[in-house]
């Protein structure tokens, strides 16, 4: 899909509000009537722009939906976008600038590093952020901060959910290996995978799971062949991978001649959604992927249907990915919270968000009071190559797991306790 420069956004960006904003003081901007401005700080350039685009569309569609249905207490939602460049420094500058101009309620954080940085910042500057996909477990554990909310999966619900589903449907697969990116997200997801697998397999089969040492791969590298060779030496039936984005495509691509995925029965992908399938088309290896939101699984939910059809209309792309729904859900959460409090003050909104149940594209979500983590359905889909589809792939199975069953207990301020999985 060719990149389209949204003229509307260009004009908006250069508009009078943009230029005048530096000289507005917070007091004048956050009047309690008139439009509500929500700040969206998300990668709008650089390698993560692909994801940032989904966030942008999801947020805009969410705002349009709310405004079309009467707004929030009659007030319209407006969005101010800023580029986080996946860089905590740039993101924090953007966040501060938005707060200074009155947009103290923000969303759109994708990068875990940025999400962790937001807490102390928002606490001292006075603001709230709802993340749109940051996957670190520290967010609702040792780095818990009341000003940061996660309305999406925690890495536990996502990965433990994935594991439980596979273990339940294929308990014959006991020998597992992992190909893990060598950074925080990779290591955490592996820990969760291993702990859950080791717990569930004996429960189901009475036998132990055999889990090999994971193969740690670099990220941003062009050549994974050494690591693939390593993986080939392992005697495994299933492979779990949390390698991300372009690296995942390269990994799968380079694995093909080795036949790594033919050797194994099941391939679990933590979070790539359609990234790999759209890249590799009919060469995609058959795999399960965790999704923030899979539209087919939520057909019939008016929010989901509206999100899907608006997205397709806007972009012509048939495969929206879950980050759009996360941003969309953040808008829904803010809308309901502001409706409850009647104003946009930071502390009031925080109080309203805690314990809030709201409707989203994946059904009802409930934000836990203790650790600001939402309980929502964990969605997985099975993607297979398909010669009959234009895109080269098709989803032949999917599942939406009850969030209550897969989320970890709340332990704000403490590290993740794997024994509770």
């Amino acid at each position, binding site marked *: 899909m060719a990149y389209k420069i949204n003229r509307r*956004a260009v004009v908006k960006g250069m508009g009078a509000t943009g230029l005048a904003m530096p000289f507005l003081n917070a007091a004048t901007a956050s009047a309690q009537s008139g439009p509500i401005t929500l700040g969206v700080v998300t990668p709008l350039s650089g390698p993560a*722009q692909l994801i940032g685009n989904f966030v942008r569309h999801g947020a805009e569609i969410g705002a349009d939906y709310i405004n079309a249905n009467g707004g929030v207490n009659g007030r319209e939602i407006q969005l101010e976008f*800023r580029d986080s460049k996946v860089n905590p420094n740039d993101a*924090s*500058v953007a966040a501060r*600038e938005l707060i200074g*101009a009155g947009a103290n309620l923000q969303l759109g954080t994708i990068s875990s590093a940025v999400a*962790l940085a937001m807490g102390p910042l928002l606490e001292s500057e006075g603001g709230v952020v709802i993340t749109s996909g940051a996957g670190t477990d520290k967010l609702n554990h040792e780095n818990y901060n009341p000003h940061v909310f996660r309305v999406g999966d925690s890495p536990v619900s996502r990965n433990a959910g994935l594991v439980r589903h596979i273990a339940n449907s294929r308990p014959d697969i006991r020998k597992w290996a992992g190909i893990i990116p060598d*950074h925080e997200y990779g290591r955490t997801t592996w820990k969760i995978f291993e702990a859950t697998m080791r717990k569930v397999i004996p429960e189901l089969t009475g036998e132990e799971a055999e889990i090999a040492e994971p193969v740690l791969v670099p990220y941003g590298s062009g050549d994974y062949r050494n690591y693939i060779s390593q993986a080939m030496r392992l005697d495994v039936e299933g492979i779990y991978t949390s390698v991300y984005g372009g690296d995942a495509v390269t990994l799968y691509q380079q694995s093909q001649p080795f036949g790594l995925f033919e050797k194994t029965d099941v391939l679990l992908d933590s979070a790539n959604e359609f990234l790999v399938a759209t890249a590799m088309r009919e060469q995609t290896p058959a795999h399960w992927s965790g999704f923030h939101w899979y539209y087919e699984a939520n057909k019939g939910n008016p929010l989901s249907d509206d999100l899907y059809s608006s997205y397709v209309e806007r972009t012509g792309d048939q495969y929206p990915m879950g980050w759009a729904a996360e941003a969309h859900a953040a808008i829904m959460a803010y809308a309901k919270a502001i409706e409850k409090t009647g104003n946009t003050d930071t502390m009031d909104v925080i109080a309203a968000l805690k314990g809030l149940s709201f409707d989203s594209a994946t059904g009802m979500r409930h934000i836990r009071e203790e650790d600001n983590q939402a309980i929502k359905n964990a969605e997985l889909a099975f993607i297979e190559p398909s010669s009959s589809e234009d895109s080269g792939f098709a989803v032949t199975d999917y599942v939406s797991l009850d969030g209550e069953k897969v989320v970890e207990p709340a332990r704000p301020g403490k590290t993740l306790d794997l024994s509770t999985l």
Partner: protein
Amino acid sequence: MIDYRARFRSNLLIASCGLAVFAVVPLVANSGLMFLAGLVAINVVFGLSWNLLFSGAGLLSFGHAMFFGGGAYAMAVVSLRLPELPFLVGLALGAGCGALIALIFGFIALRRASGVYFAVLTLAFSELVHILITKTTFLGRNDGLVGVPRPEIDLGLFRLDLTSATAYYYFIIVAMAAAAFALWCFQNSPAGRLIKAIKQDSVRTAFLGTSVFAWQLTAFVLSGAIAAFCGAVMVPFTQIASPEIAYWTVSTQPILFTLLGGAGNFWGPAVGAILFGAIDYGTRAMHGLSEITVGTLLLVVVLVIPGGLLGFVRHRRKKTRGKAKASTAGDTGARS
């Protein structure tokens, strides 16, 4: 003969004007813009430190991020793990960290001081530092270190409370002014002039008995120390140290500032940093164009006005002065 007194006075005037503008920002703009202005001030000195090496010593460094990041992380670690250490000591440690990195890598890189080799080696070393940071657990690996506190400086007689962003902003202005002053003094000192002589003709200067290698290393170490100082001052402001500040794209910033403003003038990097800050801010809500914008801008500047803005201005003034003199004197314009 260069009239140093006059030069000092004119530079002091420029610096004072700049300081005044920065000092006024918190009073007229909102906290977001003030925050940006603080970062611009840090970028100014970051650029000046780079230009010390480039224009002052003739060495092109593509790896200044390692100093900036090194100083920043040193400060973050000290603030978080050793809170009993006074803040100023932390800053000194940050600068020292940069000096050490410069010493080690400069020693290797300067043996092959041919411009391009040196540049690529600094790039490679900077990448090495970046990778090491992401692999080190006590530096927070990929997530970095968050929640770095802002200090209260105890100066015996009274305490300076820098916990608010505004107070710390003023501290930044003062600290950066001091650093810029130090840089200016160095570049106009005998040592600075010697290093400039090495840049112009290293063979001749070697014949005069100076150790080219030692002086280039000195310039590199000083440049690295000041760049690290900038990083160290920045961290309590933003309250995070993440691996992105040691990534090679940060190294390209002082290059951009210097070239935009003009490498030939001491204040060139300052002009460039401020201008770039303004452009970056002006386009902040326009998404997806930054790479191509920066690239094209840099390309145009290098091809059309390699002297940067200040060089361009000076060129025009020479021209008009030359024209005026020619029209009055009637013969070839006086060289100014």
